[in-house]
């Protein structure tokens, strides 16, 4: 039992920090620009594929730097030449643009790298057990992922709170027109945030593509979860995104190992359910099988009872 709890906690932390790398950019972009970027997870996928490709040419370490920069540059171009020109038509046009972009990126990846997953292995230097936990190996790569995501978290925090550009970003989260009227180039800040958010998603892709899988469906797999994170955390709240990332990762990870059903739960109280009735299949579903839907259930409940999310400041 202790082994299950410890390993689930470790896996939750790794997955949660990966989710935060994606959701931090998405929530900043949404809060500042009002754009719900459906293509955000596509930048994560591009990060993984760019990381894979560059790794085959010059190795993993240059790829870890170059791929996020490329993805960030691409994100900045998308903002400058796509979203900015659509801004005057309102948020629906921007939303539809990002939906279209999602499919363009997915199909482009299919065309270039094929429909099957690519072999994106753990770099040899990180492919060893770093220590044993209750007799089981903990891989160095997992610790490396944790280190990178923690570093990104600390870096993002320092940039936002200790630098002038961070102050401008924080101010523009609430009154972009006010920041503009003080003489700061807010459109350029938008481009920087969109590019930066995309670069973070790209970085998550470079390391997450190895940990999970690098395939054309990876954006569609992780994208909805990232939306759940920012809704649960509260739209526009970085702290909320951080808490929700860890929470949802924990819910999913812990659920996988719990082999109990509603029948077992009722039995604890001495109740017996009808094993032949209309709901017989529902009583027998084990919690481990519901893992993938739990985050969405959580989101629906959150929207019903606390629409502004855990730490959000607005209702809509």
């Amino acid at each position, binding site marked *: 039992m202790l082994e299950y709890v410890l390993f689930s906690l470790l896996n939750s932390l790794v997955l949660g920090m990966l989710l935060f790398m994606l959701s931090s950019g998405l929530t900043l972009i949404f809060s500042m620009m009002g754009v719900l970027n459906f293509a955000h997870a596509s930048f994560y996928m591009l990060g993984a594929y760019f990381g894979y490709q560059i790794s085959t040419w010059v190795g993993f370490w240059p790829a870890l730097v170059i791929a996020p920069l490329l993805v960030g540059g691409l994100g900045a171009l998308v903002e400058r030449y796509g979203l900015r020109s659509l801004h005057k038509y309102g948020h629906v046009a921007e939303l539809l643009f990002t939906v279209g972009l999602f499919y363009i990126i997915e199909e482009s990846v299919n065309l270039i790298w094929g429909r099957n997953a690519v072999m994106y292995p753990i770099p040899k230097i990180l492919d060893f057990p770093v220590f044993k936990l209750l007799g089981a190996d903990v891989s160095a790569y997992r610790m490396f992922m944790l280190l990178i995501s923690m570093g990104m978290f600390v870096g993002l925090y320092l940039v936002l709170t200790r630098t002038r550009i961070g102050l401008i970003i924080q101010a523009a989260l609430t009154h972009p027109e*006010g920041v*503009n009227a*003080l003489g700061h*180039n807010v459109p350029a800040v938008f481009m920087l945030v969109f590019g930066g958010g995309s670069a973070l998603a790209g970085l998550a892709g470079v390391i997450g593509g190895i940990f999970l899988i690098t395939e054309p469906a990876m954006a569609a797999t992780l994208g909805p979860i990232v939306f759940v994170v920012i809704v649960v955390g509260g739209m526009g709240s970085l702290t909320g995104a951080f808490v929700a990332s860890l929470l949802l990762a924990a819910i999913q990870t812990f659920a996988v190992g719990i082999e109990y059903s509603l029948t077992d739960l009722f039995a604890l109280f001495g109740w017996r359910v009808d094993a032949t009735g209309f709901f017989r299949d529902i009583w027998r579903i084990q919690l481990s099988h519901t893992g993938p839907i739990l985050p969405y259930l959580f989101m629906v409940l959150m929207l019903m009872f606390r629409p502004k999310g855990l730490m959000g400041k607005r209702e809509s």
Partner: protein
Amino acid sequence: MLEVKELHAYYGRSHILQGVNLKVARGEIVSLLGRNGVGRSTTCMTIMGLVPPHGSILYKGEEMAGLKPHQVARKGIGFVPEDRWIFPGLTVLQNLQLGQKRKKQAGRWTIDDVFKIFPRLGERSNVHGGLISGGEKQMLTICRTLMGDPDFIMIDEPTEGLAPQMVKQVGDLIEEIAGRGISVLLVEQKLSIALKISKRLYIMGHGKIVFEGTPNDIKNDQTIRKEWLEV
């Protein structure tokens, strides 16, 4: 310093400004009066580039119409909005620092100046902007704009919702601003403060200027006051 000619502005299909003409000279305090909804705030927003302008806005002889808001600000025009736009997650000090267009900008106003004029802001320098009182917010938003060292400043409804003592302080500050050679366009509803500190006044009605004169002209013209100012 500033000359606005035939300025028009629209919100969607609504024609808000319908040919505004006004002038402000160097170091002059000019008030823009009128009832709610006549376009006084929109005039400021349009000069600032926050609402697309149609017409001419000459500042120091240079055309401002068509420039982005940050470019207008960098030319030396400051704007204190009615809504104050205090950044709630930043401290009082950080709000002031953001008023500077560059880090360590040297201008006519320093943070020490601000804290000397308003010791209360100094005492609360590390408090978040969202947690200070309405009067303190008003002082902060004016001072934040001053940190950008503008030569011309538009102040929209600075005394709205303030206690009488605070209103006097705001009036004194505006006179101090003009005393340092900065031109002021003051948008006000309170006739008393506008008459006391302005050199000239404009009255707006239906999206255009309907009267121009001195405080004495308005004091002596009951018809104008009744028709365009009194509710």
